[in-house]
């Protein structure tokens, strides 16, 4: 029987410097596939390399040797001494390997628990393995189960609920204030990665017109171009706030840019339509006192971080549920995997045929009341003989090992052909 082995490093076991060195580019992966394709100990292989992890998932008839081979390959291809990274490697076998891949795909092992990209990355890795024909019966099934469990975890637990990044947290809050963000107008003051990310997210929620203000009008124009918005002068901010709904501020100014009295007047002019200020700047741009005005809401960077921390706590609670689902899936997969061997398959096959024969013989006996006990025995012996003859060739075929080790593919086909795995 082939064993499932996983070897890798991730953000928990290795610093970024080491992960960078071990990361695989597209080209590296193709190279790895071609090297391992004809390796006698590694039957199936899948590779994934993201910014947080590098992992090799293999099936092998000889786990120890496979691990040694993989380590050696990493050391050779990355031109690093094994000693430099050996302590950061983790190695999982059997159930542990299955659980590990389930957990990774369900985003339980991620830096930010519940982040959704990882599933897509694993799908890409699997596609690459199938296109190189390095995945076989076991990995195919394992990965399909992985995608299934990952989707289930996402749908049935709250692990992906609630924002865990600054810009998403801001959007979540804006939705609780405005309901829909459709058509809501935005004023961006200053520039900066986080602020621009927030604007992009708002646009994705179909927000309305965008105004960009900057101390340097030219910079405002550049940014306005990027968002297809309108650049305004710094002095026009007050009149812009009369119109917009969401203000995102991220300037390098030393002092406050928007004051409480100013907003109080503006709110009256806009008939108290709500205003949401997102202050990403440090030091702050927006007077925190504005939050005390009714219909005006101010969140600064620390407030948003607080929101995220709460949400991360929520996700951790949900992760417990996910672990239970994964435990169930691991047990089911192990059962399938254990049966994927010659002896249990032949036993199951024989049992199936015996049951059919028994039932049919019994039915026939009902209309053959005149026969004696010895006649019955003779008929039973005959059915046994038939079953033995039928099973003779398939058994020999299955026992013929593949290239090296048991022929998992044939066993799998047999099990499917005779429906030996009741699902």
């Amino acid at each position, binding site marked *: 029987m082939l064993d499932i082995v996983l070897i890798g490093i991730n953000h928990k076991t290795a610093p970024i410097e080491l992960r960078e060195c071990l990361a695989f580019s597209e080209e590296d992966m193709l190279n790895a596939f071609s090297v391992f394709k004809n390796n006698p100990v590694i039957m199936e292989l899948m590779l994934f390399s993201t910014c947080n992890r590098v992992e090799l998932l293999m099936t092998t008839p000889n786990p120890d040797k496979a691990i040694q081979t993989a380590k050696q390959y990493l050391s050779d291809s990355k031109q690093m001494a094994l000693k430099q990274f050996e302590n950061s490697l983790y190695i999982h076998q059997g159930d542990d390997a299955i659980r590990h891949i389930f957990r990774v795909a369900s985003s339980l092992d991620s830096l930010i628990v519940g982040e959704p990209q990882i599933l897509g990355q694993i799908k890409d890795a699997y596609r690459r393995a199938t296109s190189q024909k390095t995945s076989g019966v076991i990995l195919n099934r394992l990965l399909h189960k992985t995608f299934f469990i990952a989707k289930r975890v996402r749908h049935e637990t709250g692990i992906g609920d*609630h924002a865990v990044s600054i810009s998403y947290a801001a959007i979540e809050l804006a939705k*609780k204030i*405005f*309901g829909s963000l459709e058509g809501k107008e935005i004023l961006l003051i200053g520039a900066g990665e986080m602020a621009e990310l927030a604007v992009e997210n708002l646009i994705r929620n179909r927000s309305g017109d965008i105004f960009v203000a900057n101390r340097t009008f030219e910079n405002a124009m550049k940014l306005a171009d990027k968002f297809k918005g309108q650049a305004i002068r710094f002095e026009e901010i007050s009149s812009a706030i009369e119109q917009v709904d969401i203000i995102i501020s991220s300037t390098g100014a030393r002092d406050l840019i928007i004051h409480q009295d100013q907003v109080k007047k503006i709110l009256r002019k806009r008939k*108290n*339509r709500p205003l949401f200020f997102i202050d990403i700047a440090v030091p702050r741009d927006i007077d925190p006192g504005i939050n005390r005005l009714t*219909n005006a809401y101010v969140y600064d960077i620390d407030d948003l971080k*607080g929101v995220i921390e*709460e949400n991360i706590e929520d996700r951790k609670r949900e992760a417990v549920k996910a672990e239970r689902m994964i435990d169930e899936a691991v047990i089911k997969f192990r059962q399938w995997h254990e049966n994927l061997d010659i002896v249990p398959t032949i036993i199951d096959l024989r049992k199936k045929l015996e049951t059919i024969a028994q039932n049919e013989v019994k039915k026939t006996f009902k209309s053959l009341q005149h026969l004696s006990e010895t006649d019955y025995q003779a008929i039973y012996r005959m059915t046994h003989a038939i079953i033995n003859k039928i099973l003779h060739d398939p058994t020999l075929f299955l026992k013929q090992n593949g290239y090296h080790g048991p022929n998992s593919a044939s066993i799998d086909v047999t099990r499917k052909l005779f429906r030996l795995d009741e699902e």
Partner: protein
Amino acid sequence: MNFINSVIIVFYLMGTATYLFFLFIQKKSWEKTGQYFLTAGFVIHTTALVYGFISSGHIPARNLHETLSVAGWAVVCAFLILQYWFNLKILGIYAAPLASLIMVVSFIVPKASVHDPEIFKSLWLFLHILFIFLGEASFALACGVGVLYLLQERSIKSKRRGFFFHRLPSLDLLDTIGYVCILAGFTLMTIGLITGFVYAKTIWGKFWSADPKEIWSIITWLLYAALLHGRLMIGWRGKRSAVMAIIGFAVILFTFLGVNFLLEGHHEAFTRW
């Protein structure tokens, strides 16, 4: 009738319990079940009221017991319409217990009718009672929505979101629904008052008799008129609107119950035992 009333109360109470579960567990199935309980109770309630109407020939609102029953019916009616329109499920946590409470009180108070049934046989009275109660039920819901608004506003402003943040809808939706409730309540109440005056004219020969209930009803009406005016002209929205909806409903409760017990007048007999 006692048996029917207990059945209605049981349904409303079960609705209350399921909405309470929904608040904590947030499973859609709980909310659906709550809705079924309330709807079932409402259908029985409506049937009972129609039966009372047919068997006596006039709207069953001759004493406090019957009046409260109509009020409870109106609350459930307004809630079912509102949650159908706006998909505001969570309001059930307010409407279901309110309706249950009204019905339980209605069940407890004495049922003796002391009135000359002749003056009840008027279409104007029927319309007056129907519109006034539906209007007041809308105001009751506006008050509930106002409370939800204040809770949600608090959780956003305090930045410590806590229990309600994810459970309650957006401020904008709550504000809009509150406004719709008040607008509907105001319209219904206006029609209710007009039909009431016409009825007074047909019975007592004059539109206005400065009865305390009439005076307080006008005060309530003016209060809501001011609220609507303020909203449209000056932009009284959000917190102010929510607080006023709550105050307005307090005034209504006083008009409905307080006036009957504290002050004398010709409504007294309908609502006092």
